């Protein structure tokens, strides 16, 4: 089950990857997208992964989160000392228990209300019906959608949809939150709301947030910024998040 509040673990390593290599077959040849990446992320940190398009950021996140098996290297995450040695079913279970995802697209079921989206995700964790409703309501309120719980995606703005997706990811209190370009489909104001929510999940609950982005304005919220280029880590800078980041402008 999810371990909920990890505030006390802040600063401990949540995720560690060594020498990740991933190749894709294109035509007859292979291209190496990850060329021996070492990576780690700590509880309570917002770790930002930046780099040019095609540099392998999304591939890295997929390998770290148990979505795409790397060709070489090892990922240890929380109690799983070697994530990729587990069976597929165990990896699913690991994600179910510990991982939240926020994608560029919102991927909400058109037929479900905001609350039902969150409840559906909780249902598969084995949460009871009443508890599902309670936690879904709380999660949606925490992202500022308390008044929109019964709306379907077609009745929500892009920013609101992304907040529903965040509520869906956060409702299960994940220890690991992976976000791939969570703000790139949003305007400045909504982008800011989203990154603040992620920041909060890290600071308040002690989750390890790994956020891929192009957007330099998000840097202000990061504890750590990793630059990746052509499948290699260029630099890794630890910083103190700005206390009061300047508002985004477009």
């Amino acid at each position, binding site marked *: 089950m999810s371990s909920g509040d990890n505030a006390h673990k802040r600063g401990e390593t949540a995720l560690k990857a060594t020498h990740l290599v991933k190749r894709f077959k294109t035509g007859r040849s292979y291209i190496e997208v990850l060329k021996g990446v070492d990576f780690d992320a700590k509880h309570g940190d917002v770790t930002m992964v930046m780099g040019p398009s095609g540099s392998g950021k*999304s*591939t890295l*996140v*997929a390998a770290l*989160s148990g*979505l*795409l098996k790397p060709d070489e290297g090892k990922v240890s995450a929380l109690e799983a000392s070697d994530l990729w040695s587990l069976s597929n*079913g165990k990896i*699913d*279970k*690991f*994600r*179910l*228990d510990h*991982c*939240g*995802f926020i*994608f*560029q*697209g919102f*991927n*909400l*079921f*058109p*037929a*479900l209300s905001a609350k*039902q989206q969150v409840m*559906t*995700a909780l249902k*598969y*964790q084995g949460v009871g019906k009443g508890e599902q409703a309670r936690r879904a309501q709380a999660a949606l309120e925490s992202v500022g959608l308390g008044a929109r719980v019964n709306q*379907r995606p077609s009745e929500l703005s892009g920013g609101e949809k992304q907040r529903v*997706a965040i509520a*869906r*990811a956060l409702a*299960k209190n994940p220890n690991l939150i992976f976000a*791939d*370009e969570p703000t790139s489909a949003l305007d400045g104001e909504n982008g800011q709301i989203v990154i603040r929510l992620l920041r909060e999940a890290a600071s308040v609950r002690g989750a390890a947030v790994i956020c891929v982005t192009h957007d330099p304005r998000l840097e202000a919220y990061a504890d750590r910024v990793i630059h990746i280029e052509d499948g290699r880590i260029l630099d890794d800078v630890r910083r103190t998040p700005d206390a009061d980041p300047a508002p985004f402008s477009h």
Partner: protein
Amino acid sequence: MSLALATLLYEWRRYMAAVVALAFSGLLVLAQVGIFVGIGKGFTAQIDRASADIMVLAPGAKALFSGPQGLPRRFIPLVYSHPEVTQVAPLDFSGGRFQNILTPEQQVKAQAAAKKGGKGGGPGGGTRKSEFVNLTVIDAIPGYVTVPTDYSPSMIEALRRPFAVAVDDTALKRLGVKKGDKALYNGKTVYVAVVTHGYPNIIQPMLVVSRDTLRMLGEADTGQRVGPLMVKISDPSRAEIVAAQLNKKGEGKFRAWTRQELADANASSMLDDQIIGIILGFSAFLGLLIGVIITWQTLRGAIMANIKEFASLRALGVSMGDLRNIVLELSFWVGIVGVLAAGLLTWVVSLVAAAGGVPMAFPPLLIVVVAIFLIVIAMLSGFLSLGVLKNSQPADLLR
């Protein structure tokens, strides 16, 4: 509400093709069976609606008009001797050639038309008709066991008169007669004393006469053997028990059926016919094939349309097995909606058919079987569409 059901209701347009395909698959089978059973009912309607609680047939009979029918006359007192039996009357049938009698003016017209080589005959029914008809008998006594419950006392009264016959309104045109007309039956003069309503028979017109009239026509069973026995008992709710007691009493020399038992057997006996069986089997196969292909493709398309959402559930750790269950549940609901749609469509078609003089009848068992058949089609389609879930790669959402 579950994800599957919510999706079906909200995105119903996407699933329309599947529902329509299922509805037509169901109709294909239901309508045909309905017509065949309806035809069969045309022969037994008058008996089905009599007030007999129990029918006694020869031991080998599979249904009315199927297998050996008649019994020795001495069984009548035997059945009567059961204390709860209040009335016993044998069924009697006959059949023969029925000809209308034209008035002199009609004859002139008909001859003129015949000379011209035209089709002849106006709306007045002024053509010579000659048809084979079935004859069934009632005892012209109000409330008697052989009398259909919807016959009015005046109808029974009219039939009591010698050589009076009853014709259903759906057969009037075919026989070229109207109420009050004289006609020839096997060369003897009869007259149309009663016009009934609701006894159509699209194969052969049915005539009803009193037992006395049948005797006067010289066609009644007067020998040692009689037709099946219609039995009325004092408490109709005890029909099953009394039937069982009669069977015990008969020691296998006859078989007593409750009215419902026999009605069900009559309905399905029509479907035992080989040709009808082949037609139905082929239709069911065709319905299955078309239903599965369309439903499968529809489900595939609908799942593909939501594949990213499914992938996001996969990312959150929902197992492939759980996604499969969602798809199968969806298929099940599509099947249920398909059953409802098939029912609606068949109902409309049966109304149209009834208005056109082709009555349909649907035994409950048939409806259950077809409903299961449609759900099987939907579930089969669901199993076939499970393959598309392979496309729910959560890694594809990371771009």
